């Protein structure tokens, strides 16, 4: 739960009513598209920016540059595990 993997926003949908039809972000990861609620985010992201998701809600918005730096840190982390032959499997 703790890893804050940034997901890229491919579209913003809704927005006709602040309460009843709030804006939501469509994000894509591994070819799977998913709607993400933005009520708890610091701001509405632009298409191409990234969001950090917790329990189905975007909690923070990242610019592309910030997200790429974060992703590079995570890739380095995965490489260390891989070198040590400890890259974990998904939960069984």
């Amino acid at each position, binding site marked *: 739960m703790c890893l804050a993997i940034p997901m890229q926003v491919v579209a913003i949908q809704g927005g006709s009513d602040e309460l009843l039809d709030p804006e939501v972000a469509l994000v894509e990861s591994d070819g799977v598209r998913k709607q993400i609620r933005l009520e708890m985010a610091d701001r509405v992201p632009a298409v191409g920016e990234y969001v950090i998701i917790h329990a189905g809600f975007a909690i923070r918005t990242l610019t592309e540059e910030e997200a790429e730096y*974060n992703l590079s840190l995570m890739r380095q982390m995965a490489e260390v595990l891989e070198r040590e032959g400890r890259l974990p499997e998904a939960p069984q």
Partner: protein
Amino acid sequence: MPKSQVVSIHPVTRIEGQARVDIHLDESGRVSDARVAISALRGFEQFVIGRPAEEIPRIVSRICGICPWMHHLAAVKAVDGCFGAVPPPTGQLLRELCQVIAHIHDKILHFFFLAAPDFVLGPDGDYSVRNIMGLVRQEPELAARVARMRQLGQAMLARFAGKSIHPVAGVAGGFSKPMLETERRELAADALVLLDFASFALDYAKRSVFSRFREELQSLGAITTGFLGAVDAQGNLRLYDGLLRLMRPDGSWVDFPASDYERHLAEQVEPWSYAKMVYAKSWGEGFSLNPAAPMGVYRVNTLARLNVCDQVATPRAQAELEDFRAQFGRPAQGTLLYHWARLIELVYACERTVELLADERITDPLVRTPAESKAGRGIGHVEAPRGTLIHDYSTDDNGCITRANLIVGTTHNIAPMNLSVRQAAASLICDGEVSESILNRIEMAIRAYDP
């Protein structure tokens, strides 16, 4: 004759990420086992080796971005320890201020967005409406107020400590900038708004939410465990610092500094779980998840902190703690009581924010003492929304990391979460019948822990 089977809840609807629940049923359709697998942070400890220690507080907040402030501050405290740096009082107060404000935002998210829909709309509700939008339709005024409050804490942090996305304000030896009097006044006004909201939220929950679930609060996922949290020397609830207090299921306890954690807690990896588990080594009974006789199992997070403290040092939260104890005793064991405890902590976090901003030392310009890179060991602890968070680093002569160990809040709660899910599943499922409503209730037992 029906065969044994496994029912999986994956992903648990609002417990996103890599959580997965498997419920094993035997030939007669009774629950033979139930397991929660949760992926937690792995690899960070190897990744940081060789890096300059003062970089870690800035890196960890990018990787552990769900609770960036908690990791940032636990890391900065661990670096203080490695370098033997002692922050001036105002440096500590400013760090604590950022931490309690971050708690406020997290608790509003959890209660109103993740937990309240179950309660307000009922666990039998259709999932398509049993979410925040269902809540908005049923309680539009409340939802509008939550919407106004939802970002206030984040905005407060951003205004004072720079962008809240990746905290960098804590530094070895203290805090990176002093607070101006104008900033203090503005933040103090916002803090009062949040405190009003917190009091309203708890009143609302007690009146309209918890009162409808009296039985479930005590029974759903109920297990008997010990508890771990932090207190000051007088036994008051603490979030930013303090002694760790490890309470046994019978309510007796031992206090120890976080730097002694390895004498009391031990970590274990079960083959079926992706994350390590932690148990109370100092009880001398080992570790067992046998539901009939669990051993070494304790819980962290809101309910644990309210159970271990003798009292809360702020008046509204203290009055609420007294009311809570009068109803549920000490230690309270009901798993859904985590939600109630979470709202009492929300009141405390708001009161503590007001208190810190009224402390005349908060605008003192001396916020940092020089810290020199050197060899040492530092153990940083804060109470994060999800429980006791420990960062333990060792450095070499150049101040680079040679060893790191992290225990994150959710890790402590994985063992009790497994017991709670097993209990909930066993009490709800008979004859192999697993309805949506039953799965929703099992989810509620997990959601209380806010994994």
